[in-house]
């Protein structure tokens, strides 16, 4: 799974910490998601979708390994 959360965050010009507070997780969790070390749950993905105002598959993409 790949994602463009870092790009989306840059578009909104918010920090990892600000995004984390908006969706109720820790900054480290956002960092892990951005680095593709952690795949978030559907609930978290939908919360991100709400913040970015885009559908989930606009910033989460399946890779060949998935």
């Amino acid at each position, binding site marked *: 799974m790949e994602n463009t959360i870092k790009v989306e965050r840059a578009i909104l010009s918010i920090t990892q910490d600000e995004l984390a507070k908006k969706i109720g997780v820790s900054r480290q969790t956002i960092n892990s998601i951005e680095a593709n070390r952690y795949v*978030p749950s559907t609930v978290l993905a939908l919360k991100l979708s709400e913040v970015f105002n885009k559908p989930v598959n606009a910033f989460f993409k399946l890779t060949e390994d998935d």
Partner: protein
Amino acid sequence: MNFKKINECERSRLERWSQFQLSHRWKRVGIIICLVAFGILTSLKFMDGEFLEHRFVLRRAILIGLLIITLSKEQLEDEMIVSLRAKSFTLAFVLAVLYALIQPLVNALVFYILDSKDISNGFSYFQVLSFMLLIQILFFEVLKRNR
């Protein structure tokens, strides 16, 4: 009550029990219990006397302290923390079983190498449980730090 209702009731009760956790402030309580009990247990080693009952109680206090640390929440308990905790429980469980399997072999090996007079075949529940709880706490902290 039909089978479906019994099934539903059982599932919800299990769900509730599996999600049981203590609040974050309990972590400090667990650490204090462990340190105090460990300190007293260590000081008993240097005193004359058997202190069997004291040791029995202090060992249980250490286990309870470790269990409290294991069950207490983080300051910010998000889904990644839950996932890391689950991973650390799995690792601790597997390692504790391996420890229980390997420990008698190590005892036997030491027996043959040192040519001891008596071989101890068993090990205490305290050894296994404290190993399992310590490994869980250790792995959880390592996973949390490297996330």
